């Protein structure tokens, strides 16, 4: 067997006493079975407090088999809270790269400071993962990846195209298609470095399955046929992400929304805005708000998840209540002048859902809610008010939408569409159309979001710099530029 650790390592979903460790055996990663035969293999793992593995604190063996594409998901427990650890795997005489991870604080602990990065949307053919390289170098305490990790589209094009073989030109539909797509993306050394730098907490958006899917709906595909594709896509997603057993899909269904606590400093409510949503209103696209978008019977999260979210926020003992999800809650009026046109795919297309969330936050007196999202391929900072059309309306939460890692190529500082958004949406405090990610520093009294942007992603040696820093003070939802 050749080196099976071609796709790197990862860790995720930190707990005070544990973390999930991930790797995949794939000596020939673009082969449908990763170059593996159909047997099950033992993989040894170890966790140490030092990078040289002089002080190993946990070790064991897991068995990986073909039914999950020879991926390993080790749910390590017995670790100490809020500690840095290093981990690696061994199989067939090969040793994997070393990953760094960190456990969450204990439930009662109020740690003085934590760092967090969030990112999304990494179409591989659109450019280089320079932002991931920068993210990796900062060794955050945790990384949130908010969707569009892969794209179902063919990748035989663009800045760094795959070849014209049929599996690169067609859309991913089958399990072998999605597995190969993950392998294609995970071969990237900067992405591997980002995974190895910190534990990730992941949720998916549409392109892990298919563009703008909604529940059992995807374009004109009959639901029964789409659900087969969805099952294949979710299976491959679970296989390739550092997720626990409760997230393992059952057919086309996957329990992805979940809460992760960082002691008394932060609680992360990771949301799923795809599986339970009603179909996009008025045929999707960008439309004027209408009866369907305001229909209280429609939901973006589905009513059980809406209740789960508000109840969780209400019970949270944490200083910062973080929503990790896919797309903007803020109103996004995209046209100049008195007319209003909003995306049907974001919370704008489900404004009754948004009203229930923001209204619930206000009514229940939930403080320090910070919404982190992606999807838009642009950086957007907004005050989330009860009524976006009333400048005096109470601000009840803060939203940071991070731009894409690559999707949309280089972009620019402020494009015409971004200027319209700033002009038409006074609750929006900042917009930027470059690629990058957001690096946050969180203390009990202050949240800082640093928008790291790339000068170019269409060249391999782009550079990353801080474009703007925004601050939220404890108890004051309205955002301020730092």
């Amino acid at each position, binding site marked *: 067997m050749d080196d099976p650790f071609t796709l790197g390592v990862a860790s995720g979903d930190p707990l005070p006493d544990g973390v999930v460790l991930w790797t995949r055996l794939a000596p020939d990663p673009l082969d*449908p*079975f990763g170059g593996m035969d159909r047997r099950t293999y033992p993989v040894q793992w170890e966790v140490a407090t030092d990078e040289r593995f002089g002080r190993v604190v946990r070790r064991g063996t897991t068995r990986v088999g073909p039914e999950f594409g020879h991926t390993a998901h080790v749910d390590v427990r017995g670790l100490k809270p809020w500690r840095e650890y290093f981990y690696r795997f061994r199989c067939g005489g090969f040793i994997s790269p070393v990953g760094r991870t960190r456990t969450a604080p204990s439930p009662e602990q109020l740690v003085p400071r934590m760092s967090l990065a969030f990112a999304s949307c990494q179409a591989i053919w659109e450019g280089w993962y320079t932002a991931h390289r920068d993210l990796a170098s900062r060794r955050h305490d945790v990384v949130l990846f908010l969707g569009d990790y892969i794209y179902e589209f063919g990748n035989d094009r*663009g800045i760094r195209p795959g070849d014209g073989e049929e599996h690169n030109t067609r859309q991913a539909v089958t399990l072998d298609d999605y597995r190969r797509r993950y392998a294609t993306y995970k071969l990237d050394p900067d992405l591997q470095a980002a995974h190895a730098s910190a534990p990730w907490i992941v949720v998916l958006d549409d392109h892990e399955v298919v563009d703008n899917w909604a529940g059992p709906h995807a374009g004109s595909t009959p639901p029964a046929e789409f*659900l087969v594709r969805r099952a294949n896509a979710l299976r491959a997603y679970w296989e390739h992400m550092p997720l626990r057993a409760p997230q393992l*899909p059952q057919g086309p269904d996957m329990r992805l929304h979940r809460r992760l606590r960082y002691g008394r400093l932060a609680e992360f409510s990771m949301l799923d805005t795809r599986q339970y949503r009603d179909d996009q209103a008025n045929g999707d696209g960008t439309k004027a708000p209408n009866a369907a978008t305001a229909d209280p019977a429609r939901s973006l999260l589905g009513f059980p998840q809406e209740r789960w979210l508000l109840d969780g926020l209400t019970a949270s003992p944490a200083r910062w209540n973080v929503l990790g999800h896919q797309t903007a809650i803020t109103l996004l009026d995209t046209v100049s002048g008195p007319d209003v046109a909003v995306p049907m795919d974001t919370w704008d297309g489900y404004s009754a859902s948004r009203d229930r969330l923001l209204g619930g936050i206000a009514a229940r007196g939930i403080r320090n809610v910070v919404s982190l999202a992606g999807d838009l391929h642009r950086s957007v900072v907004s005050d989330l008010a009860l009524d976006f059309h009333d400048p005096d309306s109470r601000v009840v939460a803060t939203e940071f939408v991070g731009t894409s890692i690559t999707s949309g190529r280089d972009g620019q500082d402020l494009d015409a569409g971004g200027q319209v958004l700033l002009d038409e949406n006074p609750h929006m405090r900042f917009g930027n159309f470059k690629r990058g990610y957001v690096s946050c520093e969180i203390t009990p009294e202050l949240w800082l979001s640093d928008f790291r942007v790339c000068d170019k992603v269409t060249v391999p040696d782009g550079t990353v710099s801080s474009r703007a820093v925004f601050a939220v003070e404890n108890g004051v939802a309205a955002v301020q530029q730092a």
Partner: protein
Amino acid sequence: MKKILPLTAVVGMAAAAVAAGLPSDEARAVTSRPGAKSPRSTVTLSVAPGSLTASELPCLPTRLAVSMTNTGNEPVFADATLAADAPIVLTDEVFSTYLPATDPDQPVTRSVGVRVPHGTAPGTYDLTVTAGKQRVVVPLTVEAVPEPAPGTNLAFGRLATASSTHGNFRTCGAVDGDSDYRNWSTGSGWNDADKGVFPDWLAVTWPEPVQLGRIEVVTYGTPSRPAALQGVKDFDVQVRTGGDWLTVGSYRANTRERVVTTFDPVTTDSIRVVVHASNSSDYSRILEVEAFAPR
């Protein structure tokens, strides 16, 4: 090389693989529910058509439809593996999918391309599809490529490559012998994948050099939305001689559907259309490229 530590026993608290308990030795079909009975016998494999005929023309569609159907009560994930006698090449060696347990049964199908490499001797070759204990063999009859009759389109079925191809289209659609605009949406033409990015190119390549004197390019246009609105606008027609690209036709502000380029006879192994702009500014759309020997 790092020192390899002996990793033999679990130290301290046990760590469990989340997949523990699944039938990990079952290679071919695995239930989605831990502990469920092996569903091997419930997956039915079918392959269509029962036999195939092909030549080594690389762009003539020769495909197999591989279907798996779950006839049991439990949903399963299943794998079909595909193999072909050398030197035949299949686009897919594996087809893995979820198979729901529905009533009526719901087949799940993967279309697999069959490629006959240049130099394949005429004869019969077996294509073998296996799922669990089921095995289906489809005989492929390879025929020699007929000598082209005078006036034949020499690009028909030949190797087509492109700078990129949109997921709803096929590069080979540009050499499929179908230049009817009404079939555009069925994949009978080439549409690049990079919206608003130029230049794009589409090439046709022969395994042995051919002599050409005329190339016809058909871009997409319909009676209601003619080429002037969505066809290729600025483009060059080139032939490769001695490794260099020679421009034999250069067009700007084109509005015609079919553009005929005639030139002094040239021996070439590849031709291409390089598109610098389209009339809709978004995509390059070519229904067909045809190449002819000198008259």
